[in-house]
């Protein structure tokens, strides 16, 4: 089912959590809401679920306006960061809850509920654990039960709030791939919230980058990575070195090196340039580029990471495939940017 939010504004007292958000998820799409804490991504998710209501703006699901409808009428599956399993119920009762509480007229017979619960336990790969209590499960198992419980009511839309936030790295990665497989199998429109850019880029069809209650960019993971729309997005994706530059005649000038701008075009003038660690070449002193002194070399497998320092004391990280022979801390180098993304400073 498609989902649209139009011009949604939400304030909590003096704090503006959402400052005019508009976005649309297509039928069957897997969307990531990515941003730092306080960016409003969880608030947006809760508004889509009907757990919060916007001060202004509207929400529609499947083309029907849902702005004033409470959570129970929206047929939206919600998976909480801390799972929110019913602690006094067994796993099977948790999963069957949404069906059991239906009014008598629409409630499936007990045998049908049991069959559906068994099917979902199979789907989340926990067939033998129906009789356990949530407290007796590991974090990853609880998260899968929470997902099964949300899927049991056959929602039109699946919302996940930091679904992997409370799990350790290994479980995270497995569960991530598994969730994507479940999504592809069910074809359910899904929106998940994360502050982990790797997770968003790895998992989503499109990524919505948010900051301070506004959307900075909505794009495919490739586009978000290759052409970040704003300095915030480029910075938030992580790893990039920020250097002072100038936009001159549509090109970016960094310490005498002129390159085309990979970011959206900007007017001439002072610029903040972002260069990722692998986007440098090394040159001997005297060449055009950023003059630095090598501070440390970290060899990580096939690559080497160089920590260098410019004359004004700022640190630039560089990764190269093979460091030249005899390179040692203290050596003077020139860094030649190969690609650059620059934004008005």
């Amino acid at each position, binding site marked *: 089912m498609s989902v649209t939010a139009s011009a949604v504004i939400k304030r909590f007292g003096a704090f503006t959590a959402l400052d005019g958000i508009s976005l649309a998820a297509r039928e069957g799409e897997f969307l990531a809401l990515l941003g730092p804490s306080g960016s409003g991504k969880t608030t947006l998710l809760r508004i889509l679920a009907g*757990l919060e209501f916007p001060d202004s703006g509207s929400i529609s699901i499947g083309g029907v306006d849902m702005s004033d409808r409470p*959570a129970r009428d929206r047929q939206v599956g919600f998976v909480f960061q801390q799972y929110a399993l*019913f*602690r*006094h119920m067994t796993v099977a009762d948790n999963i069957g809850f949404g069906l059991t509480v239906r009014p008598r007229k629409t409630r499936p017979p007990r045998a049908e509920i049991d069959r559906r619960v068994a099917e979902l336990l199979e789907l989340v790969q926990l067939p033998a654990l129906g009789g356990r209590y949530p407290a007796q499960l590991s974090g990853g198992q609880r998260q899968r039960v929470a997902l099964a*419980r949300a899927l049991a009511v056959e929602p039109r839309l699946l919302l996940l709030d930091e679904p992997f936030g409370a799990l350790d790295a290994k479980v995270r990665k497995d569960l991530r791939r598994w969730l994507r497989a479940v999504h592809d199998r069910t074809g359910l429109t899904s929106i998940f919230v994360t502050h982990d850019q790797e997770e968003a880029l790895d998992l989503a069809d499109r990524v919505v980058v948010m900051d301070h209650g506004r959307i900075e960019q909505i794009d495919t993971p490739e586009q978000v990575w290759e052409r970040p729309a704003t300095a915030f997005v480029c910075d938030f994706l992580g790893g990039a070195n920020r250097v002072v530059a100038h936009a001159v005649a549509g090109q970016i000038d960094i310490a005498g090196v002129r390159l085309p701008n990979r970011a959206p075009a900007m007017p001439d003038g002072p610029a903040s340039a972002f260069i990722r660690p692998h986007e440098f070449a090394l040159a001997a002193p005297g060449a055009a580029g950023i003059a630095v002194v090598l501070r440390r070399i970290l060899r990580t497998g096939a690559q080497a990471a160089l920590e260098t320092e410019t004359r004004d004391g700022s640190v630039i990280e560089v990764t190269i495939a093979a460091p030249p022979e005899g390179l040692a801390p203290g050596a003077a180098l020139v860094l030649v940017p190969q690609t650059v993304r620059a934004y008005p400073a």
Partner: protein
Amino acid sequence: MSAAPARPTGEPRWLRWLLITVALMFLGLNLALPLAAVFVEGLRKGVAAYAAAITTPDAVSALKLTLTVAAIAVPLNIVIGLAASWAIAKFDFRFKSVLVTLIDLPFSVSPVVSGLIYVLLFGLQGWFGAALRDQDIQVIFAVPGLVLATIFITFPFVARELIPLMEEQGREEEEAALSLGASGLSTFWHVTLPNVRWGLLYGVLLCNARAMGEFGAVSVVSGHIRGRTNTLPLHIEILYNEYNFAAAFAVASLLAGLALVTLVLKSLLEWRFAGQLAGRGH
């Protein structure tokens, strides 16, 4: 773990014994000894006198009245306490802190004042006194007054027990239930209530113990009419003031017995549902 002197958090043996002895002596002197004294004094003049004291018409009537008052006040306070704590822990509204403070009021006000409030409101000279008399309704010096005073005094027990528990459990389970299509009422019935049932039971037991044992407020509104408005605590005081110590202690042992029964009941329930207790929480 008894012979492990190297435990980093362990205390020397003599200190452990000292602390345990002090705690046990304190409990013995302040709890066990007085409780035993009540029964011993009650039985001083023999079993026959004991039986006679607790079966006088006044004593039986006082027992009945005490149970009646508790039977009305406790269920009402369960309902009001649950409603108040549900509202406070799971919803945001204006003047919430005022409500929280009001709930504590009966604890901070002297019971005598609590009783006087009702006399001032419903007594013959009180605000509603004339209106009530015209309708032939008697509140003060009658059962309704006793029930009102008892509800007021015991109101905080259920709510105070439940509010911190519900606040600690948060709202996510309720939100999950709502998003799964449950109505507000079935969310309360299937999610909120089962999660707090042990806290609720504990609150109810404390509430009940106080409802049966309350003296001050009840004393003010009762009028001490023997056989009609005397509850057990008031009856005990009358007997004591008449130097009828054996009878006073005999009736007191009845009250203490009621308290012990509620405690045993609680332990039985906990034992019976130990499995479910183990399954709760994280």
